[in-house]
């Protein structure tokens, strides 16, 4: 049986902004943004579930975030994931991609004997596309980024299509391997009603009273949560402490339209256009 881990992130829904998205200090105002499952992580999860439809496999979904990130883990269970785990600790807060990939790697090692890790190409809040590759590096897996199609899967190898800017590569890999998946890859499935029934009461252990927890455990409603200690991580490498990325300054730029200038389509007009562009420091090849 193949063990698959999907890395997921809860992100502010930047496509459905309901209020002032940016605070005056230039940071994101999370209060007005609904929290959603990062779209390309859904593509990664869908790919994991498609693999499970084809071969014997078990799909684990993990996310690092505050307790409310449990919502996306439940969503993953509704879609058909077998297991979910929350990685949460105040000491993980304000992590950059380096610290995040360190914590996630710890969780993947805790799960153990993993054959395949799938992650979305990038998250819509940070858009770095760095976490997947950094995790691969830390756990010592080969990596294939920008996967746009699952072509073949067997117990021994996987063949995927990788989209580059100018070419498409078809890559065959043995396990273990880590893939980052783009939104081209598939259409994530909808939640299944019976899975919703089975898991809508799911939560992290501390959310249940002692009496409830026993029943919850019997019924599979307990989503394990791991903190820094249980993952045996080095506090210096986590959260703010482990994040060398420092934001120097955030500038809010508002693009405003200036006066519209028309150029005639003869040589003189085009030369004038080029001169004006140079003058305004807009670079061209």
């Amino acid at each position, binding site marked *: 049986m193949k063990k698959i881990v999907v890395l997921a992130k809860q992100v502010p829904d930047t496509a459905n902004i309901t209020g002032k998205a940016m605070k005056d200090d230039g940071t994101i105002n999370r209060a007005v943004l609904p929290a959603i499952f990062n779209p390309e992580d859904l593509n990664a999860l869908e790919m994991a579930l498609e693999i499970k439809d084809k071969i014997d496999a078990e799909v684990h979904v993990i996310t690092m975030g505050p307790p409310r990130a449990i919502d996306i883990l439940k969503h993953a269970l509704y879609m058909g994931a077998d297991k979910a785990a929350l990685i949460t600790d105040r000491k993980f807060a304000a992590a950059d991609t380096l610290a995040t990939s360190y914590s996630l790697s710890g969780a993947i090692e805790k799960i153990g004997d993993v054959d395949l890790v799938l992650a979305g190409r990038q998250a819509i809040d940070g858009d770095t596309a760095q976490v997947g590759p950094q995790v691969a590096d830390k756990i010592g897996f080969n990596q294939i980024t920008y996967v746009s199609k699952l072509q073949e899967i067997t117990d021994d190898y996987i063949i995927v299509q990788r989209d580059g800017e100018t070419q498409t590569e078809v890559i065959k890999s043995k396990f273990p391997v880590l893939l980052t998946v783009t939104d081209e890859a598939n259409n994530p499935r*909808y*939640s299944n009603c*019976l899975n*919703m*029934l089975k898991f809508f009461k799911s939560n992290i252990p501390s959310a249940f009273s002692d009496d409830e927890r026993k029943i919850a455990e019997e019924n599979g*409603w307990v989503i394990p949560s791991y903190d820094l200690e249980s993952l045996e991580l080095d506090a210096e490498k986590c959260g703010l402490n482990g994040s060398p990325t420092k934001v120097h300054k955030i500038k809010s730029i508002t693009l405003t339209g200036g006066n519209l200038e028309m150029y005639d389509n003869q040589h003189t007009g085009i030369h004038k256009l080029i001169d004006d562009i140079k003058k305004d420091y807009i670079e061209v090849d």
Partner: protein
Amino acid sequence: MSNFYTKNRKFYLSQQKIKPIIEDLENNFQNSGSDAIHSHEEAEQWYDMVLKNAGDICSNFIWPRSEEVDIKGATFKDGIVEWADATKENMKILGDAGYLGGTLPRQYGGLNLPVTINSAIVEMVSQADASLMNLYGLQDIAVTVFKFGTEEQKNRVLPKFCHGEVSGSMALTEPDAGSDLQAVQLKGIEKDGKWYLDGVKRFITNGSGEISLVLARSEKGSKGGRGLSMFLYERYRDDNMIVRRIEDKHGIHGSPTCELQFNMAECELVGKRKFGLIKYVMSLMNGARLGVSAQALGIAQAAYEEAVKYANEREQFGKTIVNIPAVYQMLKNMQAEIETSRLLFYKTATAVDFEDMYERKHSKGENVRQELKQAKSIADILTPLSKFVITEMANKVCYDSVQIHGGCGYMKDFPVERLSRDARITNIYEGTTQLQVVAVLSGLKSNILKNELDDFKSYEVQNLKSEKELIAAFIDEYYKVFESIKSVNNRDFFDYVGNHITEIISIIYRLVLFLPIADKNDEKADLFKFYLYESMSRLNYLIDRIETFKISYGDKIEKLKNDFIN
């Protein structure tokens, strides 16, 4: 992201009192295990998730594909019927998400939902693609097998339905047996302890499906309904049924309408011999009628939304046409008709839920004979009343929506052209409007709605006092008119004005349902009042018309047919 599970649907659904149904379905919350429901709060929370998920699928997956389904349609080649690709995808998505066994018990892979909740899903599916409802709604076949089949039949067939491995059809109609099913001729032949079907069925929705429930004459040489039995035919077990052709239809192109020829095809009896028409078809038909009401309501909702959208986009005379009184008059009427129809529709679904609940209790040996009889009679009058109201309403809404679109509405570029074609079948199949009138009249003769009308009169109103008095006066008026019609003592006259009396009760009943809601919810009070003002003039017109015809023709009404008889 848009979602068809709107505030409006949620509101009217929340008005239905289905707690006893939920308790019964969920074994009084005594079940254990990960999929057990332990309280009303849990049930409501889950139903809400199920409805929202369905609304998402309908709005964002199915609706965008509906034009393609209409253009490609189901096709027929070399004896094989094929759904449009988009139809296949739609059914797969709904099946994978678990919606194909909505009201079936979870032991078979179903959701065990109340009919009321499931009906709201059927309505949303219909809004997204009316032709898909025909395939999706054929779950009713599975429900009939569940109610009347043997354990062996249930275990064999129901999981296949729930998992979307098979689709089905109800094969009732024949070339000479349409509205009059007592004339069914297809033979059910018993030979060496096995049953075989021989003959032709026509106009069978999805007759190409793997499983058909077939009404056939099992009693050789008999005439009438009592010689008919119900049979379960499974194509994957026998291949002696062929699809001869599919119809080229005005609308619902995604749904194949088949002509079937059975050549001594092996099948199994469902339930008891000779009960085919009188018991099982009646049960199947009521479910199907509720489904068609859902279909019509969904189409009406879609046509209404298209009209509102177009009226806000289209500019003429220097303003958007939504500002023109002739346009917003049509929109306002659509809104009032759709909302009161939805109220009636959910109420009807709940009535069916109560009938089903008492049937379950009855079959477990509880002494609920009286309750069952009462619940059944209410479901039996509300089901045709809903179909009468909603399918005609949907046609009118589509007609007006085309009108608001002007010339564009006549072109295939806009969804309303398709919607108006799809709507046209709803007041014809599963019993024409005229047959719904017959069914309603039979209930009215037994005064089935008396308790509810009496309850309304004793309802303690908070705000809408004068409105209540007006409605109470119309109730009295209705009884007077009904007596007056009967006093003519002529069957033809009674039937001639039957559609009028049915419309009168359909309006009064909706007012009776609506007032207590508007009385407690300020945001609905304005719409209620608008509907009341519209209704008053309509009721007065209908009552006047009946009286005029009574005076002018009375028991001589028959002579009106003389010009047409060859």
